[in-house]
């Protein structure tokens, strides 16, 4: 009942209309731009928007994970491995040499991604059991430690995972525009679902726990239960993001468990705006476009010829300078604007709309 109510109010809300509108525009932009680089960056932005949103949901319940890469990796590896075995079974039964691309392969892709998410959520449930009693910094350590253990296990189980050298998942949805559509449909549904959860009674309980766990317990919230639920939901979507990531870049390796991947959703969310729906998306747009622009060969070359002489020990000066700045931005945002860039963005939108109103008033 509550969910239905919040669903209707969400569907009527301005935020949802803005989201739908911007997604419709985003679906068209790559066609208009007709540029493979843009398509690549846009797809990656949405994959990481799901990942950062999943982290955001967990942090909204007061649990700041420093090891979310574990779930990105578990989702990625399991969906890539399951997808591989399903498609080889299909290939064998059809008696063809290559996986035929069609409705069946798209369905397999979706099922495999969901399975990756479920497996990630299952492991998330077990880790969550250990985490619900822990305070902020202990939880940060345990989750970080788990991502290290997950990486080690993946390399120890190399005969199964193939994680040391890495492998390419079987193509189920062709890359380029079809995959982009797959990613944005997953992104819309995942982010909408998470946004609904955060606006529901459950989300209220999450925020109460984040605000003050002892008080939340006192007013009758089963804090352990809600923290565990947040953990499971968050790891489910992180797993889906991992699957999309592996199928999108057509490669998965143990590198996916790296601390950098664990810190990425945190930075995106905090820069964009912790606890908001738009925050992780804004953060993802910011960081992914920054990273991808710096990886462009022409940009690398320009930076090397202009700044390389100042930093002789570094072969590619772009990323360290950029991430030095990202670190400074992160600290500045936490100190001066704890809600991130999202409120500033909203103020800007309000400013634009209010200007329209004054113009309209003048016309009348």
């Amino acid at each position, binding site marked *: 009942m509550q969910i239905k109510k919040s669903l209707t109010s969400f569907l009527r809300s301005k935020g949802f209309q803005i989201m739908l509108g911007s997604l419709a525009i985003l679906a068209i932009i790559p066609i208009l731009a007709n540029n493979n680089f843009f398509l690549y960056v846009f797809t990656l932005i949405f994959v990481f928007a799901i990942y950062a949103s999943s982290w955001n949901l967990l942090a909204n319940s007061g649990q*700041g994970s420093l090891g979310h890469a574990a779930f990105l990796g578990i989702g990625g590896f399991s969906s890539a491995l399951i997808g591989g075995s399903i498609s080889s079974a299909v290939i064998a039964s059809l008696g063809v040499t290559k996986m035929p691309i069609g409705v069946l392969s798209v369905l397999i892709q979706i099922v495999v991604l969901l399975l990756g998410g479920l497996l990630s959520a299952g492991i998330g449930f077990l880790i969550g059991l250990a985490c619900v009693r822990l305070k902020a910094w202990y939880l940060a350590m345990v989750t970080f430690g788990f991502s290290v253990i997950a990486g080690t296990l993946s390399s120890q189980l190399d005969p199964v995972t193939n994680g040391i050298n890495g492998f390419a998942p079987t193509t189920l949805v062709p890359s380029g525009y079809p995959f982009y559509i797959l990613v944005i449909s997953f992104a819309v549904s995942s982010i909408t679902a998470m946004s609904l959860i955060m606006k529901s009674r459950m989300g209220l309980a999450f925020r109460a726990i*984040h605000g003050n766990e002892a008080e939340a317990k006192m007013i009758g919230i089963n804090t352990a239960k809600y923290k565990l639920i947040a953990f499971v939901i968050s790891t489910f979507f992180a797993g889906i993001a991992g699957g999309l990531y592996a199928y999108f870049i057509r490669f998965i390796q143990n590198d996916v468990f790296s601390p950098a991947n664990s810190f990425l959703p945190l*930075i995106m969310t905090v820069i964009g705006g912790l606890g908001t729906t738009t925050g992780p998306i804004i953060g993802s747009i910011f960081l992914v476009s920054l990273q991808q622009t710096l990886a462009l060969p022409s940009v690398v070359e320009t930076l090397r010829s202009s700044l390389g002489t100042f930093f002789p020990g570094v072969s590619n000066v772009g990323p360290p300078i950029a*991430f030095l700045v990202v670190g400074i931005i992160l600290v500045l945002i936490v*100190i001066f604007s704890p809600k991130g860039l999202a409120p500033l963005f909203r103020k800007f939108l309000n400013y634009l709309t209010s200007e329209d109103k004054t113009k309209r008033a003048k016309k009348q």
Partner: protein
Amino acid sequence: MDITAPTIILTLIWGVAIGCVYILLATGLNIIFGVMKLVNFAHGQLLMIGAYLTWTITYSAGLNAYAAILISMLVVALIGVAVERLTFRRVLGGDKLNEIFVSLGLIYIFENAAMLIWGANSKQIISPLGGMSLALPSISITYDRIVAVFVVVATLIAFGLLIQKTKLGLAMRATSQRNSTAMLMGINVETIYMLTFAIGAALAAVAGGLYGIIFSFDYQVGALPTIIAFAIIILGGLGSIKGAIIGGLLYGIVEQLATLFFGGVWGSAVAFAMLIVVLIIRPNGIFGEKGE
């Protein structure tokens, strides 16, 4: 390597030497937590800066590596003061997540700045005792590791005296017990926070110098020792200095034995597994105080 009695003894001695470096880092982290109730996840990056500064002073001024550690200690203490005043002071006492976010920002700042300044290749500090080792029957231990143990013991004794015998130490202990009462007793709590952070940073710098003499290091060296130091103080109990020493030695030995018996990749995974198991059983650490 064959597992024989001498190799096990050697492993234990190595474990003690490495444990000593971790103890210094853990003690710094611990004193900062005890007084400020702040977990500085960027503490290992201070170790990294300490190692690089020691390297630079040894390399460019031709100073003895152990004397260079003293200078880098002072510089890193000043960096610590700046970090505390500019960042942590502004988020202290609020949402705990903010402290984690600031630490993470600091990690990015320190690591990338170090990479730009000192380059991406790994370095090692050359000490006057480099390459020499004490040869016992079927075991040989480098002098640097022995000196490291002595430096750590001396530093810890000096630190213990500072905490137990001086007025500053008394003020730090008072602040750690209850900062509002300490304030009423005329202690300038903000100054104590600043000095505590500086002392913690200086300990990390010593750890960094010793680490850089024993091992080669690069700009990413800080991440794992932070985690290990954190595991140690969780094992020993947050805020307990004796606990940190016992935990540090235990950790160093367990890590080295795990590496010997299961192979290098398992060293840190086993340590984390131990940490997670301890936290599941006792959410406040083995010797930790009961929370609310």
